[in-house]
């Protein structure tokens, strides 16, 4: 990776080029641009062999391209035999349910933390953030016992609930940030104009926090979407999601099928991102809340 050039322009303060046609700096700037391009290329690069493998029939070392192409990996991956279509639905179902649950639970908590000062707030903040910095596996092993007893181990609902552990903090954090910049007087305003509490929430609060909910939801969805170990531990192999299938084939050396499932696996996320790009881009500050723990 290119190192950080010392002189990268750190501000928007641009020095008049007409006045200071200093070559080294602009070369440095180009270098910075080049390294940015390299970085981005690097970020996209690993997806390419995956795509290529999914269409290959045989691709031996040292061939740069497969010597034989075929659709069979896709045919298999898309057939119900492989369980992939069912797993997609199941994975989406889990991610969506987790997202909805986290909204229901996280928005009120975010409001409390963002809007009010109260005793013990710092403690609650630490508690809320802890699941973000304490790996899920540490908790899930102990939780497995509880879930077993509750009959939740190995069930779809159990997996949804356990997915809340790593995702809820994202939602709460984003919402706390949203509410910290939210003026509750807008609700008072609506009330004084004759809106009931419910209407004030629906017409005033909701639209104001919606972008935040969206950002939070995207994070929650993606974290749940790519969750492996919690699903495996709590789902106990019975709740088969896409990552489980992918791991299955990745460890059994079927690169073509792995490639196909991999491609299928990233698709919904990219669609989601395309749809949400404008919310995620630097303009929306909600994401910055994650940097505020």
């Amino acid at each position, binding site marked *: 990776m290119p190192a950080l050039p010392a002189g990268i322009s750190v501000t928007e303060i641009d020095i008049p080029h007409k006045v200071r046609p200093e070559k080294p700096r602009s070369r440095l700037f180009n270098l910075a641009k080049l390294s940015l391009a390299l970085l981005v290329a690097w970020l996209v690069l690993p997806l390419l062999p995956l795509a290529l493998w999914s269409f*290959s*029939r*045989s*691709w*031996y*070392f040292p061939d740069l391209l497969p010597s*034989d192409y*075929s659709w*069979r990996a896709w045919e*298999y991956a898309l057939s*119900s*035999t*492989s*369980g992939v279509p069912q797993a997609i639905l199941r994975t989406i179902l889990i991610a969506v349910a987790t997202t909805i649950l986290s909204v229901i639970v996280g928005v009120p908590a975010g409001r409390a933390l963002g809007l009010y000062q109260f005793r013990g707030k710092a403690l609650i903040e630490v508690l809320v953030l802890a699941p973000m910095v304490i790996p899920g596996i540490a908790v899930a092993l102990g939780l*497995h016992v509880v879930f*077993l*007893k509750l*009959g939740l*181990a*190995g069930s779809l609902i159990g997996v949804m609930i356990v997915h809340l552990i790593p995702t809820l903090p994202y939602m709460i954090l984003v919402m706390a940030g949203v509410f910290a910049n939210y003026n509750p007087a807008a609700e008072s305003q609506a009330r004084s104009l004759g809106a009931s509490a419910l209407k004030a929430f629906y017409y005033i609060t909701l639209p104001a926090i919606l972008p935040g909910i969206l950002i939070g939801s995207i994070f929650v969805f993606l974290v749940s979407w790519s969750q492996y170990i919690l699903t495996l531990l709590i789902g*106990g*192999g*019975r709740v*088969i999601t896409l990552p*489980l*299938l992918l*791991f*299955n*084939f990745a*460890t*059994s*050396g*079927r*690169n*073509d*099928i792995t490639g196909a499932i991999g491609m299928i696996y990233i698709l919904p996320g990219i669609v989601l991102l395309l749809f949400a790009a404008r919310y995620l881009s630097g303009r929306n500050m909600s994401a910055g809340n994650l940097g505020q723990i």
Partner: protein
Amino acid sequence: SAEGPAYKNWDEVVAAAKGETVNWFMWGGADNINRYVSDWVGREVAKRYGITLNRIGINDTAEAVNIVLGEKQAGIDDDGSVDLIWINGGNFRTMKQAGLLYCGYLDLLPNNKLVDWTDISIANDFGLPVDGCEVPWNRAQFAFAYDNARTANPPRSIAELIAWVKDHPGEFTYPAATDFNGSVFIRHVFYYAAGGPKTLLGDFDQAKFDAVAPKAWAILNEMKPYLWRQGKTYPNAIATLAQLFANKEVALYFDYDPAIFGINVENGTFPETTRSYGLEDGTIGNTNYVTIPYNSPNKAAAIVLANFLMSFDAQYEKAKPAVWGAAPAIDLSTLSANDQKTFRALPRNLSVVAPEELAKYTLPELHPDWISAIETGWQENVAK
């Protein structure tokens, strides 16, 4: 061990099975096996018995064992989530010892007569008596594979292999003992060090182990510098070795199930010039089974499915090279002449060594306690 429903006759079982769903937990890393099970078997049992087959792919059979174990501890004794497991060896031992199995239904199965229970390699699963707790499904025997376009004279015995490795540095490796196939390779070396398996059979004996083990470790350690990556690391899984072989990083591949050679050629992972063979001093063979957990809520259907898996139709379909190419667990001689002929007429994949040839030199498996000891010993003495 645990008591299950007592069916008086087969018809009762079949009647009870109708409409049930069987959750069959099995390793899910091979698309052709998945296809065979989900598509062909699933379709057949639905058609013939009105049973729904739900294949659940797992990474490791131990996962399924764990589920049952967990359920037992949680007191879920009749509503477990596992109905059938593809199993053998250590996992079978664990389940048997922990009382996790549903046993004693074999006599009901019409196809049980196709099994030669006098064959100790069927009646014993890794040295542990089956005791009516599992149903044989496949037989497998360890074999080596090489690419005859690259390697002219592969080593034909462990002794030759040891010499060959030194002559071909970096071209051989074996998976770590944590891998099923890595473990069996190490056992071959162990047998070689012991001068054959005879002294090792039976229950674990520390004294015998201590006498042989140092020799075996010495051989493996001597081999180490000539292995792939100087033996600094070993593949985690047999699939990794397959990748290494496919990409010509190593010259030799081996597998407990020779059918895999054909499968890998079929699916383009291995070159078509792949050939396989057994060792002159013999290779280890085993049988793998399906078993029903004691707390399966769908035992009738699981029994019907297990019976069907043993049927001629199922075993024949499975033996087709294009499907799987797995060696049958049933005794072909019990079949009708016609069926025997049909079976024999199956084309053989060029890459897969003929079962008859392999069967000439079959070595028995060891008791799981021996295997554990060897695996642990390897970790301590070779891996580090």
